[in-house]
């Protein structure tokens, strides 16, 4: 039984208190959101908006692992693109070379990326802070610039980048081909990932991660096996990376080492910093903001091109500079990210008209 009193909602059992969607209003809101995302949006959206949504989804899936490592466990990683690449290439090679069905290849991609990430998480048992950043950076260069570019890309003599024949990827009888198919796959994956992340964060594992993030010595004193939990965090981050990578294959039907540069790793860290650390809202807001702002920037550039013809070629550079400036400004003026702003707005509405304090 939940008591609704004029002064608020009171729970009578712990189960109610811990529920994922504690009140009827939240339940309605979440179901409404899901219906919108699964049913209404794909019907009304034009292909342009669908492909944009797919890009946002890919960014969310990619940033999820970074959020897990940096936002929840406090292990800074600057090489997450390496693990996404590991997933993407596992999936691509299995599908292309061994004709494994896509769902199986997807699972394999998750596991391989997780293990690969755990391998580079091993130094976290000994070092932390800046030194760990250096190892994840090394992971980026060793994985993408060496192993994948020099060895994996040569499998099957397909040239520098792999492209998949259309219609290769299917789940059972459902062939993933049009932007709408990709959208359905993306929204399902994003929903599952967000759910998984939320549940990881509110169980024993997530609390252990947050304890390590907040104070590792105190966490150890509380009996948390730091090394095991750090490695688990790296594994799970890699698994999310694998999901992102395997989705990328379906999104583009091609994969190339250039999709997983160090810049992409840094971009993902920027996304969660701008969104906000330590919450799913952060990941989602950051991905939405970065993708949409960059798209808006591109539209502005395209619109201005007739007046300044050189602008078209320099869009990439403008984008880089704008991203750099955005990170700096957010860190200087809104270090808690967009998620904090969202929380403030929500609180303001909740408490209205008594929004002082």
């Amino acid at each position, binding site marked *: 039984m939940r008591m609704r009193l004029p002064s608020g909602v009171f729970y009578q059992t712990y189960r109610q208190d811990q529920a994922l969607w504690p009140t009827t209003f939240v339940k309605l809101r979440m179901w409404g959101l899901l219906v919108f995302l699964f049913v209404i949006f794909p019907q009304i959206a034009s292909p342009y908006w669908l492909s944009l949504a797919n890009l946002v989804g890919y960014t969310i899936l990619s940033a999820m692992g970074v959020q897990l490592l940096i936002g929840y466990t406090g292990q800074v990683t600057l090489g997450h693109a390496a693990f996404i690449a590991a997933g993407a290439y596992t999936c691509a090679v299995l599908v292309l070379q061994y004709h494994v069905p896509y769902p199986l290849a997807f699972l394999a991609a998750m596991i391989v990326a997780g293990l690969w990430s755990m391998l580079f998480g091993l130094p976290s048992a000994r070092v932390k802070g*800046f030194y760990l950043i250096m*190892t994840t950076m090394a992971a980026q260069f060793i994985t993408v*610039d*060496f192993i994948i570019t*020099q060895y994996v890309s040569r499998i099957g003599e397909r040239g520098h980048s792999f492209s998949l024949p259309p219609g290769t990827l299917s789940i059972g009888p459902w062939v993933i081909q049009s932007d709408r198919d990709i959208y359905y796959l993306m929204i399902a994956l994003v929903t599952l990932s967000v759910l998984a992340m939320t549940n990881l964060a509110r169980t024993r594992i997530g609390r252990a991660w947050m304890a390590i993030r907040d104070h590792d010595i105190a966490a150890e004193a509380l009996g948390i096996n730091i090394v095991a939990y750090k490695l688990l965090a790296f594994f799970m981050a890699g698994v999310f990376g694998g999901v992102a990578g395997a989705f990328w294959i379906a999104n583009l039907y091609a994969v190339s080492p250039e999709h997983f540069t160090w810049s992409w790793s840094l971009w993902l860290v920027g996304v969660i910093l701008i969104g906000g650390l330590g919450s799913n809202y952060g990941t989602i807001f950051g991905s939405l903001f970065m993708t949409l702002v960059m798209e808006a920037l591109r539209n502005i550039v395209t619109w201005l091109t007739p007046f300044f013809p050189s602008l078209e070629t320099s869009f990439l550079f403008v984008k*880089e500079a704008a991203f*750099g400036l955005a*990170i700096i400004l957010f*860190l200087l003026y809104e270090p808690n990210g967009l998620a904090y702003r969202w929380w403030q707005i929500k609180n303001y509405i909740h408490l209205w008209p008594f929004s002082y304090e």
Partner: protein
Amino acid sequence: METFLQLVLTGIMVGSIYALVALGWVLIYKCSGVLNLAMGELTLIGAYVSLTFYTWGLPFPLALLATLIIGAILGILTERIFLRRLIGEPVLTIIMVTVGLSFFFRGLIELIWGTDTRVFHPPVFPYEPVRLGPVVIGQVYLWSFIAALALLGILAAFFRYTRWGLAMQAMADDEMAAMSLGISPKFVYAAAWAIAFMAAGVGGSLLGNINGVNISVGYLGLLVLPAVVLGGLNSIPGAIVGGIIIGVLQNLAGGYLDRFTPGGVKEIFPFVVMTLMLLIKPYGLFGWVRIERV
């Protein structure tokens, strides 16, 4: 044997340039605790600025001097505008601000100078190689080595004998004590950034003389990270030794290991060395060991 000597000597000479850039990095870290990931872009800026002055017809030493001046101005501006607000912030924030700076600088560099490879034309150093005993060395390498050594010497003298250098050393050693003696931390931070920009600028223009100037010079600037990890983050001699070791190891890997792989060993070998070093001796050859039993 001759190949070996050749590789080692060239390695030492390129390594001395890395040492110069690494010195700038360590200086910033020691004085203000900022872990700077924008070092590659600082080298790029130096390379392009000196190239621009050179193509305007300035003789190379003058172009280098102008690069130093511009570097100092940019360094002070960067510190004043972005980094000063971040004193005492968490490591991640500071690192990500420098990452933001690196994106920002790279975008601006590409906007201003484009992405095509540019070369110093006419070439600054003659093409004829020099014979040192059995070893043949390009003059570019030799002169870069001499220039880097000279600058390292000047910097060492600056730290040892000048008032400003001593103030910076004091600040790096003990911030509180230095401040109580009347040393201004703002001045020291600004000076550290200015010197880092200057060192990276000279390093960049020397590297640009060897391979031509394009975005990949920025990657070479990234190699300072393995160098400083190898030498120890807070050790100036460590930065110099680390830079030279990385240069030599990189050349040896390129010479001996490349034939066993499809290629690309030279580029990533420093990072492999760094990872191994982090696993075995994380505080580097000369760094301070911080004991934490967790």
